[in-house]
């Protein structure tokens, strides 16, 4: 299926890639529309993995496999196959099956639920074999393309985790694809712990139901956040209780995330929250139950600003006229770094309204994003593993 055997040309290749990639415009845009319109809630990704599987099959990828976690993987064999590179995009979206996933196409942009996170990442992964073929890029290393499931919330990166623990395939370096934001340079992962505090009442006595208890807990979480150093944050992501205007809720939940650059800090805050929950339960007495469940953890990791991969990414973005900024990640990158695999997360385009029904991606910068991915793959392909810092 490959057109030629031209040796990868790192360096200024990104600029010429960008122009040539426009020839694939329609196929790429159609893949974005299709990946965007397929509902893929965490744990219910089978249709979008089938879409990827169809595209991988059409591209003639070898060793196509759907694993027990529902991940879909295919391999583009390299010329020598001595090393293995991985490109990964999580396929799940934060939206539920019944939400309207219609994509609207306007002048220079598309919008719709889950387009930026991560319909565009999936579409880029689906189109990547064709992109490499169009650009006459053939790598020495084997290239594994992987769509992972169960990334969000309680999914806790289960797909990525399963692949790393079970594929038995040593990975030399990896790129994670996210729809936005093109300027991002993600080479470090934050330490993270994600938890849920549930409050419930069975008694008739509590006039306000669980509202006062929930409010006190949220206030306490925000107090901890206020006390901490800027490197550590406690994000209250949602508070849910009740279903109307006049009936006190008998149950509720607070979802939160602790993030920190500093090793050990997350664990210390987690302990503080556990103590807070225990105190709340004791204070409320019988009739109200307060329960803490921690559902996800990440260890902090950092490739380091001086790593050749990071320097190359910064240089490529600059060459494309894009000012980069460092954005730590809590997604797939964290697990890759945790496994000692040099990895970056790359954004593909610019966009707005992330995680809203009007999630919007700009079309023109997509060619910069794809050019960056190819240039980075070419660089990884030529990178002498001996030169990589340990």
């Amino acid at each position: 299926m490959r057109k030629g055997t031209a040796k990868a040309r790192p360096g200024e290749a990104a600029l010429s890639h960008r122009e040539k990639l426009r020839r694939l415009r329609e196929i790429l845009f159609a893949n974005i529309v299709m990946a965007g319109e397929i509902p893929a809630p965490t744990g219910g990704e089978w249709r979008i993995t089938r879409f990827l599987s169809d595209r991988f099959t059409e591209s003639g990828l070898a060793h196509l496999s759907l694993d027990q976690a529902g991940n879909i993987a295919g391999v583009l064999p390299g010329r020598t196959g001595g090393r293995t590179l991985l490109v990964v995009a999580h396929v799940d979206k934060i939206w539920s099956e019944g939400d309207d996933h219609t994509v609207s196409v306007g002048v220079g942009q598309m919008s719709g639920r889950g387009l930026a996170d991560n319909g565009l990442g999936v579409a880029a992964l689906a189109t990547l074999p064709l992109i490499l073929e169009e650009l006459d890029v053939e790598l020495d290393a084997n290239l594994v393309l992987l769509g992972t499931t169960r990334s969000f919330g309680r999914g806790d990166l289960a797909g990525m985790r399963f692949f790393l623990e079970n594929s038995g395939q040593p990975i030399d370096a990896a790129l994670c694809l996210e729809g936005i934001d093109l300027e991002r340079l993600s080479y470090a992962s934050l330490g993270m712990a994600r938890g849920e505090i549930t409050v419930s009442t069975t008694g008739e006595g509590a006039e306000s139901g669980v509202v006062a208890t929930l409010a006190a807990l949220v206030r306490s979480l925000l107090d901890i956040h206020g006390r901490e150093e800027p490197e550590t944050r406690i994000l209250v992501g949602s508070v849910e209780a009740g279903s109307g205007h006049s009936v006190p809720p008998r149950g509720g939940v607070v979802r939160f995330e602790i993030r920190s650059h500093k090793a050990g800090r997350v664990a210390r805050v987690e302990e503080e929250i556990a103590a807070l929950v225990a105190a709340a339960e004791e204070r409320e007495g019988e009739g109200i139950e307060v329960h803490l469940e921690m559902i996800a953890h990440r260890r902090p990791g950092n490739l380091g600003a001086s790593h050749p991969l990071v320097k190359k990414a910064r240089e490529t973005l600059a060459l494309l006229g894009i000012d980069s900024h460092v954005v730590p990640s809590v997604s797939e990158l964290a697990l890759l770094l945790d496994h000692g695999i040099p990895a970056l997360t790359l954004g593909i385009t610019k966009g707005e309204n992330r995680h809203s029904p009007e999630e919007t991606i700009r079309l023109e910068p997509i060619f910069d994003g794809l050019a960056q991915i190819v240039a980075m793959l070419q660089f990884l392909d030529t990178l002498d593993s001996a030169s990589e810092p340990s």
Partner: protein
Amino acid sequence: MPDLDQRISRWLETNTFHHSEFWDMQELVRAKREAGLTISLCIPTLNEEKTIGKEIIVFKSELMDRYPLLDEIAVIDSGSTDRTLEIAESFGADTYLSSEILPQYGSKPGKGENLWKAIHQLRGDILCYVDADIKNIHAKFASALVAPLIYRPEIQYVKAFYDRPLAVSDDLRPSGGGRVTEILVRPLFSMFFPELTALIQPLSGEYAVRREVLEQLPFPVGYGVETSHLIDLYRTGGLDAFAQTDLDNRVHRNQPTRDLGRMAFGILQTFVKRLRDYGMVKDLPELHGLFRQFQAEGHRHEQITREILEEERPPMITLPEYRERHGR
């Protein structure tokens, strides 16, 4: 009656398809090439900036670049005031203003006018019409309509229908069994052309037709165009000239009942004209072209009138310019 029932049942078995029967796109492209056919896709538009871009992207990518089934994709516009044409052009469609095609014949308002002028402007042996307001667009909206024409030379005209129940929210709805079809067209067909009731969605805006059929048909420029096609071709080719393909579902904006009333009025005009032309009714009085609707404000009712005249264009084959351009 048992004969009629049998004919309809037989036709449903032999000439009703599901899009999944045409999943093998490589085979479809090969059969098209072998048959020496060219295919044009026509999308008639009037202010469709919200949906036109996606339609062009999907059709161009899937049915031109990936599988070369379509030879041209054209948007024929009635004079949009939004960015419909700019968006369509930016994604690679050929765009035309209806008023600039055969300008010597003037310009009339209505979708039928665009469909008629497309016969002159486009080159394909098969023309596939797809409305521009489809939110869940997919390549099958064109491929599964042209497929029966490619595989079965005796079929002349293929209509889409949509038969899968759809969970809907807000103002989205499936259009299978549309209101005007069930309340007006199906009762009329049942009385006068009972075999045509076998067409599950006679008013659907998605259909594919052979050029030699289209060029022979007169075209009402407004609401009646689909109904007149069915009656006129049925008179000459019978039910076996038709086929229909189930495309599962179609999501678009719901139309207010008031607009559907106007649509029904236009269709009825066309229908009555056909009954007269074919001598099926006699001694009808002169019919009014003014459609009357009412709007209540408190206890006062205001009359809203709208003139709806279903003008018709002649069969394209009667135009010398057409015969010259297409060598007929």
